[in-house]
């Protein structure tokens, strides 16, 4: 891989982390009046997959979709404005934090219903096949979505019709606070997909190079018309299911488990990797951070200074013209 790409992955992960940290910091001021679901700790998955997607390729996300939105090139100013529920937000203040989208970037939406995006992304992939274009769809979902019927129904259909869709499972083990072991009879989501005849892999979702490598092959396979691929990317969310809490203690999740995953920080490891190969040096790192800081500052300023949708606009958008 060229150095340029390696640095791009780093930038994307750092941007996601910085945006999320800033959201976390500002959330206490109660101006973002919408639930937030942070993906701190899971940055490598969105970065490693989306780097292979073209602008016109489709992406569908979940309630936890900040990382995917950023990695696919969504406008961060519009994203933050949406978290502040402003008229300038990516859904004009109608969707809130769980419905980020940017159709001009192929981001057709994210859903607050677990497993809800799986059929939708399978549908855009069906459209690609009918329209005979080479657009690929990436559908992000959590391990909890594998509990849902839509997961099984969608995978069966995509396999049957050989649709160009990459199912990206961000397995962080928890659906709110229920561990995968309490919800699923197995612990290998990728094996379920293999049962539907879909090439599927379980990979370290904290290793951005691994995600990059498998996603590259998956995208190529989809573009060649060979049908769907599933990537089960094992990772961990540092924050709790919702808000800025960390869900540690009183039985939510064990401290040792949390500490282990913090030690496996996808960015820390990758930064050391780049530095050890002289791809990243202090000067470059500094300039990247300066750029990101400016981006984040601009986005929050834009959001805070934007107008809110007014009550008289309540009925807008219920129906398309």
């Amino acid at each position: 891989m060229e150095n340029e790409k390696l640095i791009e992955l780093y930038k994307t992960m750092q941007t996601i982390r910085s945006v999320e940290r800033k959201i976390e910091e500002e959330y206490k001021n109660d101006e973002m009046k919408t639930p937030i679901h942070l993906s701190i700790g899971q940055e490598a998955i969105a970065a490693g997959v989306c780097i292979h997607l073209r602008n016109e390729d489709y992406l569908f996300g979940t309630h936890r979709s900040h990382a995917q939105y950023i990695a696919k090139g969504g406008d961060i100013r519009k994203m933050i404005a949406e978290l502040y529920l402003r008229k300038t937000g990516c859904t004009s203040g109608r969707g809130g934090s769980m419905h980020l989208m940017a159709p001009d970037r192929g981001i057709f939406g994210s859903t607050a219903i677990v497993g809800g995006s799986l059929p939708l992304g399978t549908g855009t992939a069906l459209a690609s096949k009918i329209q005979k274009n080479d657009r690929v769809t990436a559908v992000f979902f959590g391990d909890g979505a594998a509990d849902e019927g839509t997961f099984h129904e969608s995978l069966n259909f995509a396999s049957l019709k050989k649709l160009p869709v990459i199912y990206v499972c961000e397995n962080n083990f928890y659906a709110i606070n229920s561990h995968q072991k309490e919800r699923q009879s197995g612990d290998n989501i990728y094996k379920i997909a293999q049962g539907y005849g879909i090439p599927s892999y379980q990979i370290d979702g904290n290793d951005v190079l691994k995600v990059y490598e498998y996603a590259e092959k998956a995208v190529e396979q989809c573009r060649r018309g060979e049908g769907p691929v599933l990537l089960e990317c094992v990772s961990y969310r540092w924050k709790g299911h919702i808000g800025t809490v960390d869900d540690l203690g009183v039985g939510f999740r064990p401290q040792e488990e949390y500490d282990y995953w913090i030690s496996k920080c996808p960015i820390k490891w990758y930064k050391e990797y780049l530095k050890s190969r002289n791809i990243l040096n202090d000067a470059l790192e500094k300039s990247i951070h300066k750029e990101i800081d400016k981006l984040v500052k601009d986005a929050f300023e834009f959001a805070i200074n934007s107008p809110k949708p007014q009550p008289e606009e309540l009925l807008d958008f219920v129906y398309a013209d």
Partner: protein
Amino acid sequence: MPWTTIEVEKQDKFVIMDDSQNGRMLSYKDALYEAMDQSLERDPRVFVMGEGVDDPGGVFGTTKGLHEKYGRERIFDTPIAENALTGIAAGAAMAGLRPVFVHSRMDFLLLSFDQLVNHAAKWSYMTGGKVSVPMVVRTVSARGWGSGAQHSQCLQGMLMNVPGLKIAAPATPYDAKGLLISSIIDNNPVLFVEHRWLYKTVGNVPDTLYSIPFGKGVVRRAGKDVTIVAVSYMLVEALKAAEKLQAQNISAEVIDLRTIKPIDEDIILESLAKTGKLIITDTGWKTGGVAAEIAALVAEKAVHMLKKPVVRVCCPDIPTPAGDLQEKAFYPDFETICTKAVELMK
């Protein structure tokens, strides 16, 4: 499924004269087929999916042979996965296609509520108007011949409660064709409610492509004594009732709403201003249904016009029985409407 055919074949060939000046007569079923055929011909974005759409029967003939004409990429059979398929249709619609997803029984629609209600119907709003979902869900409600509780339901009333969805319920062949074309060209998710007992109904149907606007009802029979607002198949019963009432010197005005979301309020209120008496008849249940909604509308906007309390002629609030004697008692018909109208005139 012979029973479906048997029960429909037993129905009279009911003829409804329509707005059209065209002399060609077509059945409701063939009008639906023609709307599908012409829409597929006209617009390459249209495709049809659903269980059995390409089988020899072709959903009671409404999609028969279309796969031979347009190919299996555009007309295809599906797994039995109503929920995901609804979302798959919605996703395809977001990507610029115009899917028509067919359920041969309306009961199966219940499996798809997550994708229909949470996703397809909400997407335009949640995206601030950036992504629309131009899809049609065709559902066929049935009755008779022991269909029982899970093969006979008319759930349109339940779905009126969903913002972002449009609902068409055509009763005549002319409307079946025109409204299906309107539904396909509409940029929103549309629930298209058909009724199996209407399939043999005959009426004027032009061979051209034409559309009918949503939210515009029509007076099927003018009258001055009592207003009967009829939905879907109940139009047939209402027209039969009006004919019978005429012999008793009761002049009934019969209104066909054509679409129930949006609903043509004006046509109801204008008629009520004349008659002061209202019977609402729907194929579904009474509580919380289409008739309940219309009654509420009248209570809100026109209670002063009512000379008598509103009457609802709907199915009683019980699951559909399979036994033939009970089934006959379960469904209201023109006799029920006549009895209610006579009572109203007292």
